[in-house]
């Protein structure tokens, strides 16, 4: 308006324009005088996603949201003590904060409480002001990249799935590798070495051929002719412990439809330097099922889940299979394993353990517990638990929901935990973040923010295996696809018989749970 007045006055050639502008201004003033007074609503606004009472990292992308209140105009403002703020106003209830202003705001607000004020203009012209929402900006940030597998809820068939990396400081998502790049193959768990984006391992499933594992070091991709299930890098980068599972998908006619049965599993150790595979008895007992390996941060202890093998080990006995959470010490220099020690007893808890992950500072162990089995994402009762490794005390996390909460990963600074949760609707898993303070309190989780705050409302894809890494994955999707289809370097690991391991007790090859239906089974 200011520029219009100036132009009209300078030219003096169009008095009509000036009169029109003045007239409009007068109408505006009269209209404003006619507006109803601002009213205060004695409750916080309804916004989605739920960004109320949360703690956020200093480098997270704008927490855009939709105001679920009726109105004709909307105003939202994040503010911190000291005058820093970021505000948006417009006709749309979809509130999107400018990335630059948001970043500056978080920079100033680090370590402080912040208020989210929302006002909605009603059709009669009055503004409704809601009670402010109080959040906290943590003093520290989170690793800048989240890598996850994004796919539709899968049953037997799969066609469109991929591993993607999301810039947590912005909204950009890029593929790491998509199944379409290698004949709609399947991608299994991706594992990084110490949150480094340049060292990863990834198992691939191809139709009609062996399922290799890709090892990535910087931009070099090596195809390892070894099927690996769940993986964990030793902090030294010299060892990769993996599980070999015989999984099968089955279905229920009531309750959660999908379920997974593991008929057999062992752990194995791949030595990167010597290209050898060994199955030490400490982690590959013939009478037990071992899975979900995870190294402690110093590499001196390996956590995993272990259950006794049933005789007979039939799918109909799926409810009887419960896994203990155990750990075993390991001396990497002398290649010596200690005795397995039970951390969580399935017998005592009457629950089954999965997915142990120790925080990088070695303070906390977070793991999952479900009613049975070792595939918690398909069980609504799957929850996260924590053990304080100083005190040894266990507790169920207060952040759990009624739906499955699984697939957690620590940030490199041990302050943040990301996990997949189906809490929103019971079907689609989304990545949620929670902050862990010095006293071991976990803050209310918030969902991964998206540029479009209504993104999840119509998103038919599930996000699992969220892994935090310190920067963008260095290897390109094309290089990874070449590593599958036309690998430049192929290694066939040499099996080494362990002195204490009975001959012939080799490691079972992994089979993916999601396969073509094998027909009715009533075993």
């Amino acid at each position: 308006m200011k520029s219009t007045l100036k132009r009209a006055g300078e030219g003096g050639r169009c008095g009509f324009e000036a009169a029109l502008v003045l007239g409009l201004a007068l109408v505006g003033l009269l209209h404003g005088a006619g507006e109803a007074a601002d009213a205060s609503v004695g409750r916080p606004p309804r916004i989605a996603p739920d960004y109320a009472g949360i703690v956020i990292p200093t480098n997270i992308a704008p927490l855009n949201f939709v105001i679920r209140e009726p109105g004709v105009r909307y105003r939202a403002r994040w503010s911190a003590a000291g005058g820093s703020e970021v505000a948006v106003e417009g006709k749309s209830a979809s509130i999107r904060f400018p990335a630059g202003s948001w970043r500056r705001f978080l920079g100033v607000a680090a370590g402080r409480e912040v208020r989210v004020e929302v006002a909605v203009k009603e059709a009669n012209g009055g503004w409704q002001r809601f009670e402010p929402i109080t959040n906290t900006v943590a003093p520290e940030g989170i690793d800048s990249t989240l890598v996850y597998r994004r796919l539709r809820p899968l049953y037997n068939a799969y066609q469109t799935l991929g591993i993607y990396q999301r810039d947590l400081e912005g909204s950009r998502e890029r593929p790491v590798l998509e199944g379409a790049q290698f004949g709609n193959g399947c991608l299994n768990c991706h594992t990084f070495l110490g949150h480094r984006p340049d060292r990863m391992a990834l198992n691939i499933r191809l139709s009609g051929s062996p399922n290799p594992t890709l090892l990535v070091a910087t931009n070099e991709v090596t195809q390892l002719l070894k099927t690996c299930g769940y993986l964990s890098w030793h902090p030294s980068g010299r060892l990769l412990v993996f599980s070999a599972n015989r999984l099968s998908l089955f279905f229920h006619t009531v309750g959660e439809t999908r379920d997974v049965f593991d008929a057999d599993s062992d752990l194995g150790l791949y030595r990167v330097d010597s290209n050898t595979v060994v199955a030490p008895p400490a982690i590959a007992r013939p009478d037990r099922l071992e899975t979900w390996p995870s190294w402690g941060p110093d590499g001196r202890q390996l956590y995993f889940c272990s259950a006794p093998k049933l005789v007979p080990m039939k799918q109909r006995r799926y409810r009887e299979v419960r896994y203990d959470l155990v750990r075993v010490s390991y001396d990497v220099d002398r290649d010596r394993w200690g005795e397995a020690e039970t951390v969580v007893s399935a017998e005592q808890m009457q629950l089954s353990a999965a997915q142990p992950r120790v925080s990088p500072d070695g303070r906390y162990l977070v793991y999952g517990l479900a009613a049975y089995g070792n595939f918690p994402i398909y069980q609504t009762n799957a929850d996260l638990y924590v053990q304080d490794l100083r005190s040894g005390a266990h507790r169920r996390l207060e952040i759990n929901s009624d739906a499955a909460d699984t697939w957690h990963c620590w940030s490199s600074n041990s302050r943040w935990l990301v996990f997949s949760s189906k809490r929103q609707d019971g079907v689609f898993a989304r990545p949620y973040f929670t902050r862990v303070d010095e006293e071991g309190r976990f803050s209310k989780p918030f969902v991964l923010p998206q540029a479009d705050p209504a993104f999840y409302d119509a998103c038919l894809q599930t996000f699992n295996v969220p892994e935090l890494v310190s920067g963008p994955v260095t290897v390109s999707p094309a290089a990874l696809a070449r590593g599958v289809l036309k690998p430049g370097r192929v290694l066939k690991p040499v099996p080494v018989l362990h002195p204490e391991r009975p001959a012939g007790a080799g490691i079972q090859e992994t089979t993916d749970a999601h396969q073509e239906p094998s027909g009715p089974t009533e075993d």
Partner: protein
Amino acid sequence: MSAKPLASRDGHRRHPSTPKAAEDRRPGRPGFPWWTAGLLAGVWLYTWFGIEPVLRYHRTAPVFFWGADFLSGHLARPGGLLEYAAAMLAQLDARGALGAFVTTGAIGLLGLGVACLLRLGAGGLRSLAWLPGLLWLVLEGRYEFSVLAPGLGVVLAAILGAIWRLVAGRLVGFWGLVFGGVAVGLWWAGGFWICLPWVAIGVAGELASRTAWGKGLGRSWLAMTAARGHWGWDAAVVGVGAAVVAVTLDRDLKRLTQIEACAAGGQWDRVLELAEGRPLGVAPEIRLAIHRALYHAGRLNKDLFAFPQRKPLDVLPSMREGWKACEPLSDTLLELGQVNLAEHMAHEALELGGERARVLWQLARINVLLGRAEAARVFLNRMRRIPFHGAAAERRLLALDRDPTLAAEEDIARVRAFRVTTDYAGSGVPTEVLLRQCLRANGRNRMAAEFLMAHYLLTGQMDLIAQHLGIWDDLGQWETPRHIEEALVAYGASQPGTPLPLGGRRIGPEPLRRFAAFQGVLRENDGRLPESRPRLARDFGDTFWFYHVYGHTGAADPGVAPRRQ
């Protein structure tokens, strides 16, 4: 080829490429192109009523959503923009007349572009402009894939090529750069289908204007096109074209698609009308459509064998028979009350067939029945972005706001009454277990009861048919269906001296008489099945006996037309 000189009105003979000749060819004041309009109207009517865009939509329509995310996904790759445009236009097939209009418009533009490019004008070869359109109609009539994306690419290339020929027509210097730039742009926007014709047009034009043989060819072509057209020739071309599209229309596939579409819309009478007395094959989605239609008509156990059946195919197809069965199977399982299994099949259809409105609607229903209203909203929110389906999704979202259980919605309440209550865990659920589970949950589940008996018929378990005759009593049905009677007669014959446990029911004289006749034919041929087959197929091809003996019904036996009973 040399150009034949033309005779002008003043009697002098001039070469067609001379200005005077061109003047001669110039038509008088251009009138309304009635001929073209009439032809396009014919194309529109044929597409609407002959090809039926609704069937094309059912069979091959690409997935499309309103919204920036769907568009940006297409913009991120070469050719994506053309695919986006084609997918958007293909949605109009949901309304037959509009879909036909798109096809007609595209064919018209293609004809215009070709006419301009080849300088056909009003000459004798003007009908050539319609040849690509004819090919388009032929391909549409095959129902195998969507022609729209490649077709649109060619249409745009033809139009742009015609403009190029008018504006520049050269590939040297500045215009060469422009041509190359446009080629890159077109490759990005449309990929192969638009870039290749564009480059071909440019190169052909360049050859025609720069090489001696090209120039000669050009002159010859102009001479050929200079001859005045004749309505008789045009009419003959149109007649041949019409014959070609009529002959190449895949009527069998069209009918099968009609059956699928009618089944998806619950038009059971129409399904049977389309299926009866015609070759069908045993594709799982068609079989299932017929079984459901027969059930809804109260004829499942009376006329099951009048349609193609082949051992060991069951009353409920398996996903292993083809992914196209997943969606109708999900619908069937839901109607039976097997909500979890319906969810399984619907998700397979979603993964393999894409995010189509029918599957999204189905998954929303399933999630409401499973008590997950929020998940139902996600599916409906997705469906809301599909053209022509947004209103239905909106209505259901509003209904969910009022009542997350949708207790008042008829399609939900009906299933809820039959929902199974016991768990069966397995990689696959055997048909018998599945159906008996439904009956355990609700003994009044007529569909489960009739499908169970059909399963026993198809698997030849006559003893179980005899054991479960009480099912009809539970349903209050006193008439014993024809195939059940046939199975009981055959069972009785296999157990001589043992009275059949008919539970108060009686078998009429007609099945007994016919069974005796069936056996008589076999006896006449000394029990040799191959020799007996033609006559038995003709007279008994729609009976349980024929199916039981030969492993298929007469309708599944090509070359034998069974006589309907």
